[in-house]
């Protein structure tokens, strides 16, 4: 315990850095997944491709991806940009599916009613379909953010500093509290972001509050990248 108290500054500093890398990746992944998911949902042919490619992305271990990406695209493996790109790709792999599933879950009658009322394609998407797909997309976003935050620690193996530093440094110096502090900090960050997402969901989608017990709001069953 004394190690943790003595090094609170370091833990805090690494947490902030960790959070910065993860938030960029999650936001980028979310923003990119919406058009990708929409296209996959809208055009049957693309759907198969998108599902296959994102599924294959999942089979690539993060450590391998962190080396492969810079090699293929010719940038430094040691920059934190590299980690952010890899994390963004994993986030997209989870989120594109959620966007497609979410849009699938929108009642056809509602969509038809919006069209009948004269909503244009764009307005119908942002005003009706996207909000109604929200609960499913939020479930995917929660899975994506938790796995991103936990996965990011692997970055230390290619030289990107974040909370993973406490693991490698803790092993070298055989300080158990240091490693434990790293794990706890990662879990706290993950739960914190998860809580913020749930609260944001309740604020932005007030109609889901009452039907909370129903199926869509529960965290998605089981997606998550291996480390």
């Amino acid at each position, binding site marked *: 315990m004394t190690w943790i108290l003595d090094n609170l500054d370091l833990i805090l500093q690494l947490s902030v850095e960790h959070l910065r890398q993860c938030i960029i990746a999650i936001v980028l992944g979310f923003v990119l997944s919406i058009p990708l998911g929409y296209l996959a949902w*809208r055009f*049957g042919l693309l*759907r198969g491709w998108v*599902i296959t490619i*994102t*599924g*294959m992305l*999942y*089979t*690539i*271990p*993060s*450590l*391998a*991806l962190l*080396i*492969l990406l810079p*090699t293929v695209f010719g940038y430094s493996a040691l920059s934190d940009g590299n980690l952010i790109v890899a994390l963004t790709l994993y986030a997209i792999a989870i989120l594109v*599916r959620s966007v*497609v*599933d979410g849009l*699938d879950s929108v009642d*056809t009658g509602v969509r*038809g009613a919006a*069209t009948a009322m004269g909503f244009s*394609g764009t307005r119908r998407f942002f005003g009706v379909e996207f909000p109604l797909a929200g609960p499913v997309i939020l*479930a*995917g976003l*929660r899975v994506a953010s938790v*796995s991103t*935050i*936990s996965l990011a*620690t692997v970055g230390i*193996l290619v*030289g990107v500093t974040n909370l*993973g530093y406490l*693991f*490698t440094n*803790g*092993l070298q110096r*055989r300080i*158990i509290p240091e*490693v*434990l502090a*790293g794990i706890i900090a*990662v*879990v706290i960050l*993950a*739960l914190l972001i*998860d809580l913020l997402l749930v609260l944001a969901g309740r604020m932005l989608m007030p109609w889901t509050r009452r039907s909370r017990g129903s199926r869509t709001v*529960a*965290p*998605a*069953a*089981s*997606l*998550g*990248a*291996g*480390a």
Partner: protein
Amino acid sequence: MNLLIDAWLWIIAPEQWTGNYALPTLLLQQIGFTFAAVGIATVIAVPAGWAIGHTGKGREIAVAISGAARAIPSFGLLILLVLVLGVTRRPEAALVTFVLLAIPSLLAGAYTGLQAIDRATIDAARAVGMTRWQVLWRVEVPLGLPLLVGGLRTATLQVVATVTIAAYVNLGGLGWPIIQGIPLGRFDQVLAGAVLVAALALVLDGLLALAQRAAVPRGLRAAPRSAPQADREPTFDKPRQTPDALATRSSS
């Protein structure tokens, strides 16, 4: 792209095929850890998942535990367990880490498989006089099998990818060329390791995709896939049938 050729040359070099760190040995270690961990996790998680799915109780707890487990970084847990159990118990530490990693997907696969079954089917099974156990073994388990195999597939992929980090605590596996190569700046062997792990993962994924298809009971194959999904499928393939007609109509 030259690096890819270098990686290939590293793989086929004779030194990589002999000694303690011969590629076949590393591959076997990777596969061994994966199968052992997924096997143990199956024994623990599947009966629990079936119990949850059959009784409908404990789902909230299962979801909460799975969610929390996903937040724990495997890399950190592995190192923590190595330090706590002692350096001589590294294989056990790694196994525990990978088992814990595999449990949430398998648990979810087992209970969503049972929950996705139409209640009328189960009522019908009761009505023809089946006992609880018969309903479980002859109706629920077969019908839930595709989703369970889907969970097995996710778990296997997660574990096979994560076993890569076992090399960091000197347990071999295909992560060894990666972990050993990074500080040396030997990117040919790093890339070679990365490609080999990805290839192994793709092969396992393909095999399990076939298993998943084979797991669909014969009576269900011809039927339209209109069964409601109780939870998100823990699988990556089999998109639900695209409502093409619907999409076309609504876009007008």
